[in-house]
């Protein structure tokens, strides 16, 4: 099992360690519910060093990123970040990812741990015809996520970057606890917050200083368990559950990352075809209308027919009810539509509700 550079610190804090995508990571410290609520109301610190990083440089870097992704990377000025995807020719997902515009000929891609090697192989195998160099940098980067309404207050005293001046989906380089870092106003929780990348070989002091200075303000260390409940309340996609190489970008209800006017890109013809012909299914949010918690892969029934399996499903610590995501037949995706989920052999009522389940109030 691979270990992040913060592994010992998690154990010292009592983190319950599990294996996740080949990494030994904490699933929880104080418990999923208190950790979840700390992020919603105060702040939480996550070790997300398992995420993968790829650097694309060269004269054709922009054209190359444009070819691999549906979103329009040409709109990014240096200092900006974009949510997008690595698309197959079928407009399904190799992965979803963030693209950081580092300079005119330099893009930094952040991908999921589960797909890290697959993604790099995909990226490296599509360079023909482009004057680019691709470097797999996952092993040299550590990454922390500091999330929650107090994230800026916790981080500002520890960095020379002006955080108040950093807008959402922007990044800057600077020192954090004396270490060289890249900090972006991004995250996977639906809260305000930052992701902190460093190539420093000994970054433990960043973690421990953030914990120490944040504790009095209510900051807690957060494990993978609450990372999942937080992202689901905010309807942020989890690869393997909600999106995969079997689901198209339009079916996943991510039309907002598709920019057809930008030119050709992998998957575009299929997207245009789906737009013309209409979809047969779409990812929607649901809540349970009867007691029970729907989990991934539970069978989903509509009018007695099995129509799907639950994509994501959990108990929402904030809303205190069972919620989830599922691909339903397109004529059954309107809010209020009732269907059934089989929970341990029992058909249990669920209903489609609007998403995201939770959206933070804007300041």
């Amino acid at each position, binding site marked *: 099992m691979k270990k992040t550079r913060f592994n010992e610190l998690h154990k010292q804090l009592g983190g319950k360690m599990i294996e996740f995508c080949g990494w030994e990571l904490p*699933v*929880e410290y104080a*418990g*999923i*519910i208190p950790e979840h609520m700390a992020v919603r109301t105060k702040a939480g610190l996550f070790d997300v060093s398992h995420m993968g990083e790829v650097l694309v440089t060269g004269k054709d870097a922009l054209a190359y990123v444009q070819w691999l992704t549906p979103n329009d990377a040409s709109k990014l000025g240096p200092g900006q970040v974009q949510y997008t995807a690595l698309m197959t020719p079928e407009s399904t997902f190799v992965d979803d990812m963030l693209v950081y515009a580092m300079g005119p000929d330099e893009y930094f891609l952040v991908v999921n741990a589960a797909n890290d090697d697959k993604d790099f192989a995909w990226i490296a195998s599509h360079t023909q015809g482009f004057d680019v160099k691709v470097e797999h940098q996952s092993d040299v980067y550590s990454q922390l996520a500091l999330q929650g309404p107090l994230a800026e207050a916790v981080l500002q005293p520890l960095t020379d970057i002006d955080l108040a001046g950093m807008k959402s989906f922007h990044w800057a380089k600077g020192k954090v606890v004396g270490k060289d870092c890249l900090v972006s106003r991004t995250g996977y929780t639906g809260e305000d917050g930052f992701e902190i990348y460093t190539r420093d070989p000994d970054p433990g002091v960043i973690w421990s200083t953030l914990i120490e200075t944040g504790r009095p303000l209510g900051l807690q260390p957060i494990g993978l*368990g609450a990372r999942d*409940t937080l992202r689901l309340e905010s309807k942020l996609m989890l690869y393997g559950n909600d999106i995969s190489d079997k689901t198209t970008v339009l079916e996943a209800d991510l039309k907002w990352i598709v920019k057809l006017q930008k030119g050709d890109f992998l998957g575009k013809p299929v997207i245009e075809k789906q737009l013309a012909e209409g979809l047969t299914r779409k990812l929607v949010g649901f809540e349970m209308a009867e*007691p*029970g*918690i729907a*989990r991934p892969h539970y069978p989903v029934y509509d009018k007695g027919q099995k129509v799907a399996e639950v994509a994501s499903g*959990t*108990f929402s*610590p904030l809303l205190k009810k069972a919620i989830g995501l599922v691909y339903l037949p397109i004529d059954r995706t309107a809010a209020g539509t009732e269907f059934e989920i089989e929970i*341990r052999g029992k058909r249990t009522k669920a209903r489609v509700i609007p998403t995201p389940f939770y959206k933070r109030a804007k300041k």
Partner: protein
Amino acid sequence: MVPNDFLYTKEHEWIKVEGDEGLIGITDFAQHQLGDIIYVELPAVGKELAPRQSIGVVESVKSVSDVFTPVPGVVTAVNEALGQTADLLNKDPHGQGWIVRIKIKDKKDLEGLLSASDYEKYLEGLEH
């Protein structure tokens, strides 16, 4: 954290024998492993329990687990309070967080269970 007068299983259930009946629940170790418990599915009163049959399902945010009866019997009562406050299993697993009461079929079956000291030794073994 392991009451002396209860008997235990290696699957982390406990039974507190009271005459011909027994209260059944999960141990403190089990609730720690499960994390925040939010939902408990209870059996019907009168249900006959074969050896190691499920007496219910405990759901935490992250996982779903069956709870099994330590000995055969018949369900005489269920802890209705868990319907609204499933976290009693976290807060007081050996007390208010009991799950069912059963009429024990044959008290000889209790001989196969662990005493408190045996269970504690078993837990020590798990942690090493």
